[in-house]
């Protein structure tokens, strides 16, 4: 499942949608909103997405992870809109026969999301707001 949406998700919901009988390991990663950034308090964040392209990129990254690491399935869910401290931002779940490839694939997916998927975070602090600078791929 690849999904971009405003609403929150539950980890159980994503894992249940991923599981098949062939899996012996499920690795999950959940990104949440932190209360500070470079020493400054963060009140909330806002997430913007170029949805059409983001789906395309996420589907490509999922396919690469399955191909490169031999895992069974990969799910990614990413939220957009206004998110408060401790709220879920995104989640990756990787199901595989064994743990090794599941951990590696999960790392590959998050690293590539941070480079290639057109989603941007804006941090709102008591001093004002600023876009988070991403790295150029």
């Amino acid at each position, binding site marked *: 499942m690849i999904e971009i949406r405003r609403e929150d998700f539950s980890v159980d919901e994503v894992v249940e949608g991923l599981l098949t009988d062939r899996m012996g390991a499920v690795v999950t990663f959940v990104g949440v909103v932190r209360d500070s950034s470079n020493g400054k308090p963060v009140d909330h964040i806002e997430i913007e997405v170029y949805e059409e392209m983001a789906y395309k990129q996420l589907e490509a990254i999922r396919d690469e992870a399955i191909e490169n690491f031999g895992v069974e399935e990969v799910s990614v869910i990413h939220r957009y809109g206004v998110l408060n401290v401790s709220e879920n931002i995104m989640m990756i779940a990787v199901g595989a026969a064994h743990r090794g490839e599941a951990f590696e694939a999960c790392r590959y997916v998050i690293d590539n999301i*941070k480079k290639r998927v057109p989603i*941007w975070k804006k941090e709102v602090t008591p001093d004002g707001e600023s876009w988070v600078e991403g*790295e150029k791929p």
Partner: protein
Amino acid sequence: MLYFASFRELLGVGNEDLQIPSGSTVGAVLERIKKVHSELTETEKMLVAVNGSFVESGLLLNDGDVVAFFPPVSGG
């Protein structure tokens, strides 16, 4: 043209139509945009996508292509 995040805020617009001569490269469109929008100077940190895929500036554009310009991504 589509603009996102800090570019959208800088230009005050997320979407605009620009007439481009057929056979233009992505790089030529970028030069055109910089002329129309003098605010956009940090091209070093600009990513370009055509129809949802990252492209090089030498790519030739076709009629109806959707071109998007945006800063490095920061999701996840």
